[in-house]
């Protein structure tokens, strides 16, 4: 991490503290950051997402991507039209998106500490379990509806997901 990236991260942390965000995950160009703020409950408050996006776009490390970095606020379910719940993964590469068929909490593995069902780069078969979405204390196994290569995971483990929310991008075989 260079000095510019570090400064951006400091600005980001300040912003998040002001907005009283409890937890924050960021994945950007191979850089993965998980921030957990002590003393804050699950509520995320009224986060000004446009300001957040602005902060992330101007981080020096984001020069290869014009689009806003994938921002996931684990405790805020998708809001009003201004805030979209996941980055628009373009279909230009013919990628197939596995979407959540139910509302609930996404988990990448069957239990805490267990191996994730699938990782980026894995091959999946149609019908193969790719993740869990927990709803009302029931662990629902979500199956892939296509065979191919896992190109991208779009949600973080423990994140609330809504109906139709993109979970994985698969390059069909």
């Amino acid at each position, binding site marked *: 991490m260079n000095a510019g990236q570090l400064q951006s991260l400091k600005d980001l942390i300040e912003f998040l503290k002001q907005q009283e965000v409890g937890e924050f995950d960021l994945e950007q160009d191979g850089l993965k950051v998980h921030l957990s703020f002590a003393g804050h409950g699950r509520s995320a408050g009224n986060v000004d997402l446009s300001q957040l996006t602005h902060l992330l776009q101007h981080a020096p490390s984001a020069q290869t991507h014009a689009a806003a970095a994938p921002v996931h606020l684990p405790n805020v379910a998708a809001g009003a039209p201004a805030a979209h719940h996941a980055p628009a993964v373009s279909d230009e590469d013919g990628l197939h998106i596995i979407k959540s068929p139910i*509302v609930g909490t996404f988990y990448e593995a069957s239990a805490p500490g267990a191996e994730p069902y699938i990782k980026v780069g894995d091959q999946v078969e149609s019908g193969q379990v790719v993740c869990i979405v927990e709803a009302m204390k029931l662990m629902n196994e979500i199956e892939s509806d296509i065979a191919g290569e896992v190109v991208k995971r779009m949600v973080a483990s423990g994140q609330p997901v809504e109906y139709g929310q993109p979970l994985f991008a698969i390059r069909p075989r």
Partner: protein
Amino acid sequence: MFRKVLIANRGEIALRIISACKEMGIRTVAIYSEADRNSLHVRFADEAICIGPPRSADSYLNVPAVISAAEIADVDAIHPGYGLLSENANFAEVCRASNIKFIGPPPEVTRLMGEKEKARMSMKRAKVPILPGSEGVIQSEEDALEWAKQIGYPVILKASAGGGGRGMRVVRSSEELPNFFRAARTEAQNAFGNGDLYMEKFIERPRHIEFQVLADEHGNVMSLGERECSIQRRHQKLIEESPSLQVTPKMREEIGATLKRCLETIGYMNAGTVEFLMDEDGKLYFIEMNTRIQVEHPVTELVTGVDLVKAQFRIASGEKISEIITRPIEMRGHAIECRINAEHPEKFTPSAGKITVFNLPGGNGVRVDTAQYAEGVVPPYYDSLIAKLIVHGTDRAEAVARMERALSMFVVEGIYTTIPLHQRIFADADFRAGEFDTKFMERFFEREKLRTESSQ
């Protein structure tokens, strides 16, 4: 007071509830189907969660989806609105088991009132006047014939598990009864999953009069007066007003006291409406109770000055009626509501599509409850109500004039609406004179038909 509430509904009532919450500093969570992504209730809520595809059964009526959304959003309470899950006792129970406060009565009370026949018996025991009818569910055709003989024709067969006109048949003679009995049972089974029927005396020209009640969780019930909803088409209300010209202050007080006593015994809580039929002699008979906020609640709000939705939240958070309503209820002036549907004003075919112009009337004494907007889309998956136009005046004459004025300034283009129908009703001499019963619309359409035929 609740910190965060999920609104388990859509359209204008979801927006109504969100509005009350905003005024009370309660954070709101909207749920929506994919067809409602651009709805106003989604836009104005603090948070919104997509819970399913367009069909209600897969989204708004999908209990696990609704509860799951409530859990991930970490809400304290769920307001069910009207229709959808609002009178679903199972849903209320799931809320209770999930430690989420359901804004409404306890599941046991909802269940009791939901079984129409049990509700009748309950009211009868509490000395609320009910229509002569069968004691309990009718066991067989022979049973039906016996009851009808006792009650006296004409009689009406009704579904114990439902309403809205389905599973209902009017029977005028013993010859007709067996066939109608079978038909009503099948229809009820198909519509509600329960073919149980009961029977009541049928009043040829009844008026529909209903009383609004509020009950706190400390055993106190208060009546907020009546609404008259006799203008109906196929058992669906078109126009409601308050007060009813047929209800004297003495009647209002007596029914209010009876309902207070009866509902306190039953242990009713939160908002509710008790429906009566009034016969040609002005006598009231209980028919059913709705254990939720109703579509036409604004009419009562305008004449009493009580915000019913806020009252619901205050009651559910433990406040007493005496804290919420600090002065005796007075009926001030006259209020009328027109339900504006996205339907052809003569053919009544549903008119889904994009609204291109949406100009709302305003000004003194005019209230519009709507979740539609210009460039908004009316989806084909849900009921056709797109707006409620409510007016208040110092008396009925002013309210009528105000409604006519407001209707003429309500401009909607891009879809058909029933605004022209309402304008024709308000021009009708009988309506203006307050001379009507629940058969009014039938006669109105007959008159219109004769007018068009004779002018050809």
